């Protein structure tokens, strides 16, 4: 049982999420319904997209903390383009382009110049937020057209268009990571030098991971603008840390090479369900951070101790096997 918990983080976290949700369901009747499920899904969309963006970057053993700023920047590009009278598809293209460009900047700094990714993206976190504020002049962008808001409104079976796109992205990432080239990402993160000696284009893989992240932040920015209908100055502030926390909870190792899409999804849903449950339980919102942080630390603590215990047991078992094999082989040697 313990072994399963430690080995399969996704299943464990899924069970914990179900347990938490059913407990909340007991305390607040009417919570457990399809309606709540779609609410959790749509509340978690922006976080999900940001997490899906950081995911490949972390798999390559880098980190990207500039997500919140790129989200804000592309949301602003979208808003300004729309309010200047560009057609919606064109404006969406601009926003995606801005996100991809920002991702390429990160990628060039890390893969090209060899700047440690945490330092590079901390710098661009400030840089892109500043660029965003300069373009808006510090003002909020309001009165976004209805066509954009309809992207975030419920349409098919309780899901919004962005919700469906996110689901497709999740399937795409899952499919890609199973493919041959998808494994390259894992290999790069697991052992960069070995990957390089095997002839993998390590730098290009890193650059592409950051570019993908930029594109996902742009999608998150579009979703954000579509859902709330305006773009405040602080759009996306701090979401990168939440996303990284959700990824860690979902079993994605910051040491690279380990993690699954299932982990990303369940990590984000767990975080979002806690926030949503607190609303249902009528607990004031200011408890969110304390409960979320304590749960994150608790999961990390239990998981870390379990992993260490398992490793020690495995090692002890190996030693035992080793010494038994030695005893068995000795008589043979004597006979010879």
């Amino acid at each position: 049982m313990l072994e399963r918990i430690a080995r399969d983080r996704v299943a464990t976290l899924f069970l914990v999420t179900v347990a938490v949700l059913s407990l909340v369901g007991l305390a607040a009747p009417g919570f457990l319904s399809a309606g709540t499920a779609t609410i959790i899904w749509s509340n978690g969309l922006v976080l999900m997209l940001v997490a899906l963006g950081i995911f490949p970057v972390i798999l390559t053993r880098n980190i990207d903390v500039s997500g919140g700023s790129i989200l804000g920047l592309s949301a602003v590009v979208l808003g300004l383009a729309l309010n200047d009278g560009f057609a919606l598809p064109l404006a969406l293209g601009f926003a995606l382009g801005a996100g991809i460009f920002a991702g390429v900047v990160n990628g060039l700094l890390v893969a090209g110049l060899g700047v440690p990714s945490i330092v590079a993206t901390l710098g661009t976190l400030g840089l892109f937020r500043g660029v965003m504020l300069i373009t808006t002049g510090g003002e909020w962008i309001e009165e976004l057209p209805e066509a954009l808001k309809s992207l975030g409104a419920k349409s098919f079976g309780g899901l919004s268009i962005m919700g469906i796109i996110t689901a497709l992205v999740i399937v795409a990432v899952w499919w890609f990571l199973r493919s041959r080239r998808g494994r390259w990402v894992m290999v790069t993160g697991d052992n960069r030098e070995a990957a390089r000696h095997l002839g993998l284009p390590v730098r290009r893989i890193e650059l592409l991971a950051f570019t993908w992240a930029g594109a996902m932040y742009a999608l998150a920015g579009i979703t954000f603008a579509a859902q709330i209908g305006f773009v405040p100055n602080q759009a996306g502030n701090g979401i990168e840390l939440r996303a990284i926390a959700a990824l860690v909870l979902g079993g994605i190792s910051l040491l690279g090479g380990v993690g699954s899409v299932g982990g990303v999804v369940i990590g984000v849903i767990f975080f979002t369900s806690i926030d949503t449950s607190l609303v249902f339980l009528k607990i004031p919102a200011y408890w969110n951070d304390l409960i979320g942080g304590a749960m994150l630390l608790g999961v990390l603590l239990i998981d870390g101790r379990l992993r260490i215990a398992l490793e020690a047991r495995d090692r002890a078992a190996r030693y035992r096997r080793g010494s038994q094999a030695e005893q068995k082989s000795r008589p043979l040697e004597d006979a010879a």
Partner: protein
Amino acid sequence: MKRYVMRWEVLLLAILVVELLIFGMINPRFLRPSSLLFGTSDFVQVGIVAVPLTLVIIAGGIDVSFASTVGLAAIAFGIANFFGLPLPLSLLVGFATGALAGVLNATIIRLTRLQPLVVTLGSLYMFSGAATVLSGVVGANGYEGIGGFPAGFTALGYAQVMGLPMPLFVFLCFAAVLLVLLHLTRFGRLVFQIGLNENAARHSGMPVFRVQLMTYVLTGLAAALAGIMLSAYFGSARVDLGSATLLPAITAAVLGGASIYGGKGSVLGTVIATFIIGYLQQGLQMSGVPSQISSALSGALLVLVVALRHGAALLREFLPERAAQAN
């Protein structure tokens, strides 16, 4: 001679001088001693947390939770004061909260063997959450914070010592203590050694955990110091007192020469970098540049300086090869 001139700190000092001269040319009032001196009160709290953070980074760790610890310690101090504890005891409560936060971080990192970034990210949320909940206990609302400090305490925020404003004086004293601690003591050598190779340090019997614990506790104490100083300066303890120090403090440590991989860095570098970052923001504001742009510029500064350093290192690896080919 070359050993003293060709140093990162000297280059930083040159950047600082050039920066001050440029802002002086744009706005001569910027260079008045009084504005240079008293302007520091707006940014020394960044330096106060950045200096012990440098120690954490040199020892191979990282701490992002200090940004919440500042607020948490300030709130703890404010609550102790609110319930009528005498000032020294309230101060003790504040500092103890900061130290405890450091102990918690180091212990969880040690117990789980997880990356410090992950653990302190979790505690970043938990501490700010705890501070918010605590401030709710005494019915303070988020923006006003907990006030009602004795007049003698709030006067400290504006007091002067030897012609220096109090916050700057505290910062310089604190930095001097850590400078000695890091560069002139056994403990400091241990910090560098552990950052260079933690396993080697452990196998040669160095007290790895105790040293790392010390660095995190120092960061927690510094965060408490910053929180209490800011409460005196603003006259109230708020949850979000430290949130604006997160990025500038890490920037200052990295700009000051600390390597994120551990084993490299200096207190002096971080101190100079703090002034570069602080005066950059102030100079830009006095030159009439909106604060949005100054945040972009300090981000750009970090990217540029670090890119230059790594670019120069790449170039150095490149050049001897070229020279060999030319022969």
